[in-house]
C-alpha cells in the first residue's frame, strides 16, 4: 500500500506525532510529580495503629486536646497534642500558630512523623468548623470501628465549654491559648 504524503499531509502527520509525543511526556512528568508530591491524610488512630510512614511528608489532623499546648519561653517552639478522642498524637512546631488555633478546635498539621512517635510539623492549619471535627478525622474513626458521633459530641462539648470560658473572661485579652 502506498501512502502518498503530500507536504500538507506530511505536516499534519508531524503535528499529530508531535502532539502525541508532547502529551505523553506531559502526562508522564505530571504523574511522576504527582507521585512525589501527594500528602496522605492520617488521623491519630491510624498513626497509633502504625499505618503512617515515618519521615515522609504526611498530613494529620484532629482536635487540639485542652491543656496540652506548651510553649518554650525563649523561642517560638510549641508542642501540643492532637487527638481524635481515641488516640493522641504529639506535635512539635516552631513558628506562629494560625489565628484560629485554639484548644478544643480542629487542626490539620503537615509534617513528618519521627521515629520517637511525635510529628514534626512544617505547617499548622486551623479551621473554625461548626462540625467541631474535621471530616477526615470522623471518617478515619468510623473506619477504625468507632462511632464518630460519640466523639463528635465530645469534641463539641469541649469546644463549647472552652468558648463559654473565653466569653466569660475578658474577651479583649483572651490569651488562654
Amino acid at each position: 500500500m502506498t501512502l502518498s504524503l503530500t507536504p500538507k499531509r506530511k505536516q499534519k502527520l508531524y503535528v499529530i506525532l508531535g502532539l502525541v509525543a508532547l502529551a505523553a511526556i506531559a502526562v508522564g512528568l505530571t504523574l511522576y510529580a504527582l507521585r512525589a508530591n501527594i500528602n496522605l491524610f492520617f488521623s491519630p488512630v491510624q498513626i497509633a495503629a502504625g499505618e503512617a510512614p515515618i519521615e515522609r511528608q504526611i498530613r494529620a489532623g484532629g482536635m487540639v486536646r485542652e491543656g496540652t499546648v506548651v510553649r518554650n519561653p525563649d523561642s517560638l517552639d510549641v508542642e501540643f497534642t492532637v487527638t481524635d478522642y481515641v488516640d493522641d498524637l504529639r506535635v512539635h512546631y516552631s513558628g506562629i500558630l494560625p489565628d484560629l488555633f485554639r484548644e478544643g478546635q480542629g487542626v490539620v498539621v503537615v509534617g513528618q512523623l519521627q521515629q520517637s512517635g511525635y510529628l514534626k510539623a512544617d505547617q499548622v492549619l486551623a479551621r473554625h468548623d461548626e462540625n467541631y471535627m474535621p471530616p477526615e478525622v470522623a471518617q478515619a474513626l468510623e473506619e477504625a470501628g468507632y462511632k464518630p458521633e460519640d466523639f463528635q459530641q465530645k469534641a463539641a462539648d469541649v469546644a463549647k465549654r472552652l468558648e463559654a470560658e473565653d466569653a466569660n473572661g475578658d474577651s479583649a485579652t483572651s490569651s488562654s491559648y
Partner: protein
Amino acid sequence: MLTQMIPEIGHYALVIALLLAVIQAVMPLAGAATRRPLWMAYARPMATGQFLFVAIAYACLTTSYMLDDFSVANVANNSNSMLPWYYKFSAVWGNHEGSVLLWSLMLAGWGYAAASFSRELPRDMVARVLGVMGLVCVGFLLFILVTSNPFERLLPHMPADGADLNPLLQDIGLILHPPMLYMGYVGFSVVFAFAIAALLGGRLDAAWARWARPWTNLAWACLTVGIALGSWWAYYELGWGGWWFWDPVENASLLPWLTGTALMHSLAVTEKRGAFKSWTLLLAITTFSLSLLGTFLVRSGVLTSVHAFANDPSRGFFILMLLGITVGLSLLIFALRAPRVSHKVGFSWLSRDALLLINNLMLVIMTVTVLLGTVYPLLLDALDLGKISVGPPYFNALFVPLTLIMSVFMGLGPISRWKETAPSLLVRRLWLAAVVAVVLGAALPLIFAERWSAPVAVGLIAALWIVLPMLRDLYDKIRRASTLGAGLKKLSLAYWGMQLGHLGVAVTIVGVAVVSNYNIERNVRMGPGDSVQVAGYTFTMIELTDRRGANFLADRAVIEVQRGDSNRRFTMNPEKRLYLATGMPMTQVALRPGLFRDLYVAMGEDLGDGSWAMRVQYKPFVRWLWLGALLMSIGGVLAVADKRYRRMATAPDPEETALKPAGGDRGKEATA
C-alpha cells in the same frame, strides 16, 4: 410598607428575568434555524429586559443589606448593623446566594453588551449568540431560584441583629476582587456563545474572529486583574505574606485564564491566517467550561476554604449538571459541525503561526497539569480511594519549567512573520538580544544582591529574552519611518497591546523569581524594647497598645523601623483584631510597600509574658507580580481599542485585512 416588600419584589423580578431568558434562548435560536427574522428579532429586547430585571433583583438585595433587613436570611447570616456601609454593600457577594446573583447579573450584563454592540453583525449571528447566552442565563437563574434563593425570609422569628460578615472579608479586597473575577469568568460566555453560533451557522471567517476578539480580550483582562487582586488580597489579609498557594480555588481561576490566553492567541491566527479554526472553537468551549468548573469547585462545597460558603450537596449537584450539559452539548455540536468550518492552511515550521501553535500547546499542557493536580484529590476522595492533598511542590515542579520553555518562544513570536520566517532573519535580529539577556540576567543578581541565585538569574534571562526582542522590533519599526513621531504613529494600538501584554508577563516573571528566592522571613518573639534586624532594616517594638474599631477590638504594636545607620525612621502598626459579633480573631498586617521591596510585619500570637510572636518579612519585588498582571490587562484592553475594531463599526468589510500576504503592513499584523 413598600420597603417591607423589597425582597419579594426582588424575587419576583428574578422570576420575570428567568421567563425573559427562556424566550431569549428559544425564539432567536429557533428563528435562526428556520430563517424567520421576526423570531430572531426577539433576541435584543429580551437580552435588555433580562438584564434590567436581574439588575432590579440585585438592587433589591443590596437595599435589604443597606436597610439592615434581618428578616431576610441572607442578610441576617452575612451582615450586622455595626458593619460600615461599604461592607454592607459588598457583603451582598460575600456569600453563596449573593455571589451567584452577582454572577447572573454580570452574565445578563455581558448579554446586554453583546446585544448593544453587535449592530453590524449579520442578523442570524446575533440571534444565535444571544440565544446561546440566553440558555446559559436560564441555567443560572434556575440555579438561583431552585437552590439558592437570596430573598428567603426568616419570618416570623427574625433575629435582632445579623451574624456579621466573616472578618476576613471585611476588606477592600472583597469590594474589588470578586466582581472583577466574575467579570472575567462570565465574560468568556460571550466568546463561547460566538463559538457555538459559528458552529450552528457554519460560518467562521476572519470577520467572525474579529468580532470575537474584543470580547475575549475584555474578559481576559478582567480575569487577569481579578486573579491579581485575589493574590494581592491573600498577601496582606492572611497575614503570612504568601501570594499564591496553589489552592484549588486559585487554580480554578487560573485554569480559564490559561486557556483564555491560548484562545486570544489562537484567535489572532484565525483572524490573520484563517487557520486553527476548530482549535479556536474548542478553546472557546473549553475556557467557558473551565469557568463553570471553577464555579462548581468553589460553590459546591467540595472544597473547604474561605471561598466555600455553603456545603449544600443539592447545589453542587445542580452546578455539576449544568456543567455536564454545557460541556456535553457544546462538544456534541462541535463534533457534528466542526468539519464544516475547518479549513487547512499551510505554514512553515518557522513562522508566527507555528510559534503561536507552540504557545497554545504549552498553555494547554499547563492547564492539564494544573487541572490534574486540582481535581485528582477530589476524584480520589469521590471514589473513596483515600484523602490526599497535592501540595505546591507539584505545581511548582511543572509550572515553572513550562513557563520558562514558553518564554523562549515568546521571545521569538512577536518578531517572526506569518506563514514563513527565514531563520537567518531571526538570527540576525535576535543574536544581540540573546547575548544581552544572558549576560545581564546572570550579572544583575551578582551586582544587586548579596548572594547570587541561579533561579533568579534564569528568571531574569527569561524576562529579558521576552522584552529585548520586542524592543528591537520597536526600534526597527520606528527606524524605517521618516521621524520618530511618524514611526510611533504608524504603530497600531493592537501592536502596543501585544507589547504591553508581553512586557507584563516579563515583569511578573521577574517578580516571581526575585521574591521567591530573595524573600527574607523572620519569626521572632518580641516585647517592648526588643529589636530585630532584617535585610538591613532594624525593627524595634516601641510599645503594645490597644484600640477599638467600629466592630472590633485590636491589640496593636508600634514598631519603629530604621534603615541601616540612616536617621530616617518610620513606624508600622500591625494589629491583632477580635471581631465582636463573631468572636473571630484576625491579623491585620502592617505594610510598607515599595516598587523594589515591601516590608511586612504581622502579629502572630500573644505569648503571655508581655511579648508577642511577630512575623517580620522583607519581600523584594513583590509588587512586580501584580504590576505585571496590570500591564497584561491594560495590553488586552488596548488591543480592543485598535481602530480596526472601530472601523468595523462603520464599514463592515470582512475580507479587508484578513488574508494579506506576509510582510505587508507589519504594524497591522503584529497583533499576536
